[in-house]
């Protein structure tokens, strides 16, 4: 016992020494300017891997290969980041925030990456942002939605190349009121955590702001990954709301539709799925026509055609045998934003420093896959994009899932002006929104 205890003590001391020596090597890794090492973080395991993590990882592989080979269409047809090839690796986002932060520190301080691109969960993003600032490391978020990141704080090293989740809700509300002007009531079904609560909150507030006096029949908040929604569906059937809003995604969304469709919920109420695009290819005929789908931005079927978008869709489908969904687009755009910043800074002088890249990234307007991305908010660190919604239509003849009545809302129509919090902007009736 005694001896054993001392062994531990020495082991502990040894660990520290070992650590010190390992550190001797670490900075060396950080110094090497080319190639540019990038850490990519997304869900590789757990329920979120299927719908978000893996599509994003595939997109990253595809785009990084193309960047290194210089195969991207203009304006990205030059090789690498400011000429330097990208050397990247993946890290699993699954696990509590503690672990996610641990991994981030490991990437930055031990592996000495030049930049980190990733994060699906808003929890991760809110946890990482301060750490990125503390460690002074360029970090680009690609999918997480909460507007709080740049509204509650301002960051020098953190960027987000996709819009906040606010535009999903505002867009959904605008679309609903435009397409179904006669509605008297609506209801909500959202997962019981920040994502679901915020999505509903923004949608509800926008509806009340745009058309006061609409009745809220019921708002259901089942547990995340509950899987069983028969009781909620009964409640929604009984409520007979004209419109049902849901920010469900992945397995929960699929389970809900499987359980709701046969019970005729969609015949009785218009269903609005803010992230529905991710499942339309998987569901085909199982998804009733007329369901309103969104893609958290001008992505997937909403992407504006063009050399870049067409290349991405084709290359992705050829390589992974399934069309890209919005997380793929968001990841691609995060990387393209990084490339644009590097190239812009690189024009001034070769192999730019991190601060030069950041300076170039701020307030950057760049061509993203599907639409233009404008780093307009959060002192030039938060992107704004347009948002689009459409109605699902399964084409019996071709067996192709398609969208009808697609409406685009420009960024200025669904994003608050700089310095205004999304929630306040919505309450104020979205003053100054330019929708034409």
């Amino acid at each position, binding site marked *: *016992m005694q001896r*054993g*205890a001392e062994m531990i003590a020495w082991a502990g001391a040894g660990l520290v020494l070992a650590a010190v020596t390992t*550190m001797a090597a670490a900075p060396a890794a950080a110094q090497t300017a080319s190639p540019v090492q990038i850490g990519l973080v997304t869900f590789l395991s757990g329920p979120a891997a299927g719908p978000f993590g893996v599509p994003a990882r595939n997109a990253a592989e595809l785009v990084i290969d193309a960047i290194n080979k210089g195969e991207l269409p203009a304006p990205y047809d030059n090789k690498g980041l400011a000429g330097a090839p990208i050397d990247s690796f993946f890290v699993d986002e699954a696990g509590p925030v503690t672990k996610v932060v*641990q991994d981030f520190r490991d990437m*930055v301080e031990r592996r000495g990456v030049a930049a980190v691109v990733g994060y699906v969960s808003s929890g991760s993003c*809110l*946890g990482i942002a301060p750490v990125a600032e503390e460690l002074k490391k360029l970090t680009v978020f690609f999918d997480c939605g909460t507007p709080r990141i740049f509204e509650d704080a301002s960051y020098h090293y953190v960027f987000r190349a996709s819009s906040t989740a606010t535009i999903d809700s505002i867009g959904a509300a605008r679309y609903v009121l435009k397409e179904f002007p006669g509605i008297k009531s609506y209801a909500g079904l959202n997962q019981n955590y*920040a994502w679901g609560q915020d999505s509903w909150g923004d949608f509800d507030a926008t509806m009340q702001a745009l058309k006061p006096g609409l009745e809220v029949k019921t708002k259901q908040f089942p547990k995340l990954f509950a899987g069983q929604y028969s009781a909620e569906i009964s409640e929604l059937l009984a409520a007979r709301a004209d419109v049902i809003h849901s920010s469900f995604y992945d397995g929960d969304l699929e389970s809900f539709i499987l359980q709701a469709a046969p019970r005729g919920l969609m015949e009785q109420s218009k269903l609005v799925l803010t992230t529905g695009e991710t499942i339309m290819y998987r569901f085909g005929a199982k998804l009733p026509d007329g369901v309103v789908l969104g893609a958290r931005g001008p992505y997937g079927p909403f992407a504006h055609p063009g050399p870049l978008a067409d290349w991405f869709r084709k290359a992705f489908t050829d390589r992974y045998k399934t069309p890209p969904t919005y997380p793929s687009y968001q990841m691609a755009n995060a990387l393209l934003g990084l490339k644009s910043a590097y190239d812009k800074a690189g024009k001034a002088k070769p192999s730019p420093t991190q601060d030069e890249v950041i300076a170039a990234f701020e307030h950057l307007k760049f061509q993203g896959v599907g639409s233009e991305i404008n780093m307009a908010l959060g002192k030039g660190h938060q992107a704004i994009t347009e948002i689009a919604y459409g109605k699902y239509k399964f084409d019996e003849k071709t067996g192709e899932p398609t969208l009808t009545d697609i409406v685009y809302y420009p960024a200025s129509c669904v994003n608050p002006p700089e310095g205004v919090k999304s929630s306040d902007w919505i309450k104020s009736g979205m003053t100054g929104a330019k929708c034409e």
Partner: protein
Amino acid sequence: MDGTLRALAVAVIALAIGSLWTPDWIVFLATIIIAKGLVVLGLMVLWRTGLVSFGQALYYGIGAYAVGMAQLAFGLRDAFLLVAFGTVLAAAIAVLLGFLLARYRDIFFAMLSLAFSMILYGTLVKSATLCSTDCFAVLPPRFAGMAAGGTLAKNGLFWLTLAAATIAVYGVHRYLASPLGALTTAIRDNEIRVEYLGYSVERAIHIKYVIAAALAGAGGAIVALAVGHIDPDSTYWTTSGEFVFVTILSGAGSALAPFVGSAIFEALRAYATAYAPYSWQMILGVFLLLLILFLPQGVWSLFQRRVRRAAP
């Protein structure tokens, strides 16, 4: 001064000084390891009594949220005070719940504590004021009034954690050697005899429960300060499960065991998730299985030269 305490002294000094030349990410990792070790130390005290709590995340979470709320409510920034607050709050709540839980044994104790932690989880996820699952940021702490900067920012929290761990280990070590501490295994063996020797088993368990809770609260508070972010996951049952896992892994051999176990676990998970993202669960499972089958007294028994007289 016996071996455990000598080992404690050596380890603490080595780590405290060594950390000056250690890269941040290792210091951070060490902070997390020791903080979680504190939680496990508490579970170890309960486990010696034959009690396993599947809800210790309740107090881990309370410690963490105590830090966040103390910062919001009374602008408390001092690391020491924040950790103390988390510890005391956890202990206070344990004193209350203890009156109830001290009456329960084995699986009922485990499940009732689990239920309590899950109720807290539910309320936290539900509460917009605590920003539900994602917005609770913790401000960087101050140390004795000094705004954290330079070495202090880097090592201050680690040193604080070391200090907390030192106190905890010393305390638990002395406690286990005391008459009341001896009641841990005694109660597991035979409650009736304890009652007929004239001591209240409920009271003994209540005390152990509070000790465990206080340690969990301290651990939670430190982790919150280190990570700078709080979310309800810290109160979810899987978090409790992880702590139980580490308790078994460590073994109840010594008050130092939990920290060794915690270090091994974090290392194991770090590598498993980094290099086998699709099969880290399996690796953990297999590891736990082998451990239980071939190392029933936990990794600590590897370090024990003398086999204890009465093997439980």
